[in-house]
Structure formats: C-alpha cells, structure tokens
C-alpha cells in the first residue's frame, strides 16, 4: 500500500468534520473557537498534501499563509471574546441571541 496524498486528504476530511461537529455542538465560546482552529488545520493539511501530489511548492506556501491569517484571527477573536465576557460575564454563546427574529 503506497501512501499517496489521498490518505492525508481523507484524514483531513475527517478532522474537518470533527471540527465542524465541535462548532455545532459545544456552547462554550472558547471551545467553539478551538474547533474552528482544528478545521483550519485540517485545511492546511489538505493544502500540503495537494502540493506534494502536484509537485508544487505553492501548497506549502498557502499553508504558511493560512497559519499567519489564523494567528491574526485568533488574536482578534479572543480579544472580542474577552470584551464580551466583561460585559456579560458568560462564555455561553447561546446568550448572544440579540439578532433573533
């Protein structure tokens, strides 16, 4: 059995789904955020796998960029979370339902 890039992509798909399930099922904002990070990681894995399949270095370059962006996003996201927590003293996402209707 040769380990082609397809295996990595399959694994990445599974990780992605688990991350998606985490977003949908958990109520703690932090855990939701972490699930999103997991999804980003899975995508990264797919990028690198595809790059190695096609023989292009751009797969890895893309993965790098994703990491950069994810880092920036985490910064801001957590800052927002902290600000929200200060107002409402809860990390429960369901409480933030002001857009209802």
């Amino acid at each position: 059995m040769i380990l082609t890039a397809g295996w990595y992509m399959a694994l990445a798909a599974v990780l992605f789904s688990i991350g998606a399930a985490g977003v949908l099922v958990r109520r703690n904002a932090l855990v939701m955020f972490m699930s999103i990070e997991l999804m980003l990681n899975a995508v990264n894995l797919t990028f690198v796998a595809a790059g190695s399949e096609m023989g292009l270095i751009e797969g890895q370059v893309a993965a790098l960029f994703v990491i950069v962006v994810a880092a920036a996003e985490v910064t801001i996201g957590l800052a927002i979370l902290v600000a929200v927590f200060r107002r409402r003293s809860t990390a429960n996402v369901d409480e933030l339902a002001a857009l209802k209707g």
Partner: protein
Amino acid sequence: MIDLVPVLVVLPLIGAATLIIFGKRIGEPWSGWVASALVGVGFVIAAGLTVPLISGTTESESIQLFTWIPGLGVEASLLWDPLASFMALIVTGVGFLIHVYAVGYMHGDERYGRFFGYMNLFIASMLILVLADNFAVMFVGWELVGLSSYLLISFWFIRPAAAAAGKKAFIVNRIGDWGFLVGLMLIFAAFGTFNYGTVFDEAPTVLSEGTATAITLLLFVGAVGKSAQIPLYVWLPDAMEGPTPVSALIHAATMVTAGIYMIARSAVLYELAPATLVVVATVGAATAFYAATLAMGQRDIKRVLAYSTISQLGYMVMAVGVTAFTAGLFHLMTHAFFKALLFLGAGAVIHSLAGEQDMFRMGGLRKLMPVTFWTMVVAWLAIAGVVPLSGFWSKDEILAAAFAHGPYFIVLWAVGVAAALLTAFYMTRLMLLTFGGEGRWPDGVEPEEAPTLMTVPLVILAVLAAIAGIWNTPWRLGLEHFLEPSFEGVTQQQPPEGQAVVGLALIALVATVMGIFGAWSRYNKAIPAERSGFWKAALNGYGIDELYGKYAVAPGRAIAGWTATVLDQNVIDGLVNSVGRGVKSFGVSMSDTQTGWVRWYGAIMVAGTFAVLLWLLLSGGLF
C-alpha cells in the same frame, strides 16, 4: 377640389380637441367664435362642393384616407355624393346658426369653452357619419354622436337629473347600437366588405330575401334607438336636461335624423326586404301618433318640443318605410329648420324668464319678445302644416306617398292625418300658453327680448322654415332630381297622379285647421288646470318609464349589484387578498428560522453544504 372633403371633418375635430383642452384658457367669447367659425367655414366648403354636384359637372366620388383595418379590408374613406352633400349642408348650416346662438345663450357658464369643444366634436362626428363611404366608418360616426350627445346632455352634470338623463340616453342608444352592430356583422358575412358601392351593387344578386330582411331589421333597430321611435324613445324627453342649443342641434335637427339617413342610404337593401318596410312604416306612423298624444299633456315647453320631435321623426320613418326616401329627407330638412327654430325660441323664452320652463307659468310674452314671437309663429305654422310654409309641402308629400303605396298603408295615412291634427293642436296650445293671454310668471322676473346674437339665427331659420318648401314642390321636384344619383336602382314611391294629390292635401289642411281651432277655443280664454285623467297620464308618459324601470332596469341593477359585491369583493378581491395573506404568512413562518443562535446558523450552513455536495455527487455520477 374634392380633396377638401376631409377638411370638413378635420376642422371641427381640431376645434374640438383645442377647445376641450384649452377651452378654459381661451374663455368667453372666443371659444364660441372659434367654434362657430370652424363650422361656418365647413358650411362654405360644403356649399362650394355642392354647386358642381347640382349643375352636374362632377360625379359622386370616394376619397380614400388610409387603411384602417387591413385584416377585414376596411378602408377609412369618405364619399361625396348628393345625399352626403345634402346632409352635410344641413349639419353645418343649421349647426353654424346654433353655434352663434349658443355664444349668447351660454354666456356666463363656467365651462363655456368645453361646451363649444363638445359641440364641435358633435359636428365632426355627425359629418363622419354622413360622409362615410362604408358602414364601418358610418358606425364610428354613429358611436361618436352618441358620445357627444351623452357629454352634452349631462353638461351640467352637477344636477343629478342631468347626469341621469345622459346615462339613460347612452344606455338606451346602446340597445339600438347592438342591433346595428349585429346587422353590420351580417352585412360583412354576406358581402365580405362594408363598402357602400360594393354592397349596394351586389345586393340584388347576393342577398336572399330572408337575409335582407334580417339585415334591414337589425339596422332598423339601430335607427329606432338613435331616432327615438317606439319602443326606444324614452331617452329623448329626458335629454331636455341639456342646454337648449344642444336640444336644438342634436335632438331636433341632426343626430336623431341619423337613423333616417342610414335607412335612406341603405335604400337598396330595404327595397329587397318588403317585410321590413312594412314594419318600418308601421313603427313610424304609430310613433308619430303616440308621441303627439303625449305632447298634448306636457307642461314643460321643452318636453312638448321633445315629444314633437319624436312624432315628426315618426313621419320621416314612415316616409322611408313606404320607400318615399326623398320625401323623408325633405321633411328631415324642413324639420331641421322649424324644430331648431322652435327650440332656440323656447330657449330665448326660458332665458328671459330666468329659467322658467313650465308653460303654465308663462303667458303674455308676445308684446315683450316680438322677434322671438313672430319667428316662432312662422315655425308654428310650418310644423302645423299650413300652406305655403315648408312643413306643409314636406308633410303632405309623405302622406300622399303613404296613401299611394298600397291598401294597408292607407291605414297608416289615416294615422298620419290624425297625428297632423294633434300636432296642430299641441303646437297651438304651446303658442297660446307661452305667448298669449296675460303673464302668469312669478314676481321679480322681468322678461325682455333676447340679445341680437340670439335673435339673428332665429330670423334666418324663420326665413328658411318659410321658403324651404320651394325646393321640392310637386311641380318642380328639385330635391328629388338632385338626389337621384344617390338612389340609383331604387324605385321611390311617388305621390298619386293628378288631382288626387290636391285632394289629399286639402284633407290634411282641414285636419290642421281643426287642430288649431280646437286648441284656440280651449286655451284662448281661460287656462284649464289639466291635472287629471288623460292630461295626467300623458304628463307621466303613460307610465312607460316606470314599466321599463321595473322590468329592464331593475334586473340590470340587481345583476350589477351582485357583481359588485359577490363577484368583485368576495371572489376577485378575495383572491388577491389571499395571495397577500399567503405571502405574509409564509414570511412569518420563515422568520422562525432566524433564531439568533450562531450554532443554529452554523448547522444550517453545514447542512446546506452537505446538500450541495450530495447533489453534485449524484449529478456528477461519481458513485
């Protein structure tokens, strides 16, 4: 030269459009002058174009304007032949005089400009009707005069009576128009065209007697409506709600004569259907007598004249019914003169008495309004049929032709003579009540002669009413010769030969004198009350209006009411509203998806992506 014929129609149309739109701006009295001038120019053109026809230097000619309905092969074209020129002269000539009269009569009305716009519209419509070269264009004119009539009858629409009268006229006319339209359809089915020339040339060979009878009867239904014969006459007395110039122009001189013109024009078709002719003549004679009885009991001066018009129209219809087409048209012309004169004079009287129309409150006006009085005397004598005024010649020609037509028609002749007696009676009654005796009007009213603008047309019409007989005396049938080219292939009923004519004329004259004398002896001394019995019944129109109301109008109203409430409100509005309600409820149910929870939105997103992937998978055949 012949190219000027369309100008005849276009000029008043332009006047109508301009005055209806800008009438308020143009204002008094220029609207009136413009309108009168346009009609006057029309008269001059018509006269100019008639002279060559009289001397025989030109022939009848069709003028093509444009293709109107290519699918049916209908052209918009006009015909200039003796009959058309005859009618055009009457319409523009009498129309011009009435326009001038109206400039003075309508003084002070706040919709002055619009009035003259409508009057010009009417002249244009009537000219379209009489100048048409085919039945389709005639129908356009037919409908347009109906429209103008409606607009003018209900001119003072603030009065509920006027609005109702306009509506009644239009609706009753519609019944006639239905018959006319079905007749037109039959003509097209039989001939494949509406063109007069083609239809009249081919009729003797193409039409069976049955088809001809059907067509002519249906066309006659249209004439019954437009020319106010039994049973569709009920709109004409109510039409007196319109201003008096309108009554004079439309409901005496011109529009109501459209039916007669139509039958005369289609003489070829009518000669192929003897059964219809019997019907026509009978209806005409019956109407002449019936309306005369009703005229005897009226108190309103205009309503007397209205019923008188119906009665005289009956004479014209009787004439064409016995195929004396020229006689009928001759009476049409003389009637236009003296009836317009009577209406305009009545208008002057009403004007001077500040709107009083009940004759029993008039009287003694002969000294105060001399011009009006003497011109109306001329008209009175003319309509009564006193020799040598025009009415005598035309009426007697009709009666003589009826007598000579056949045994059945002698009965109609007798009816006509009886109607003549009654005509003389009620006209004398009118004159005596209005002008004779002492004044009975309320205090504070000071009647005086009408202004010159109004009296000049009266004088001109009086002259015409007096001398017009000269154009078709039995010794020199001028009109008949002139109209001959229009009646090619038609045998017209002639009066009986020799001395019989004189004898018949004498009988008619005796009837006239008896009528005048009867009225004179009754009304010269004291004015009877006339509130009971026959007088009351005649005043009420013998209850015919109530009858129609109960059996014709009420069911129609019920259907309209049902349609408005059940059909319109419940069904149609319900349908539209339910669509709105459905959309709204759909929206409300959709708003349940906006829960405000992020995770819910996320779930929906993932589900959506899943669905798309699934669809791609299935359609792409990756399984």
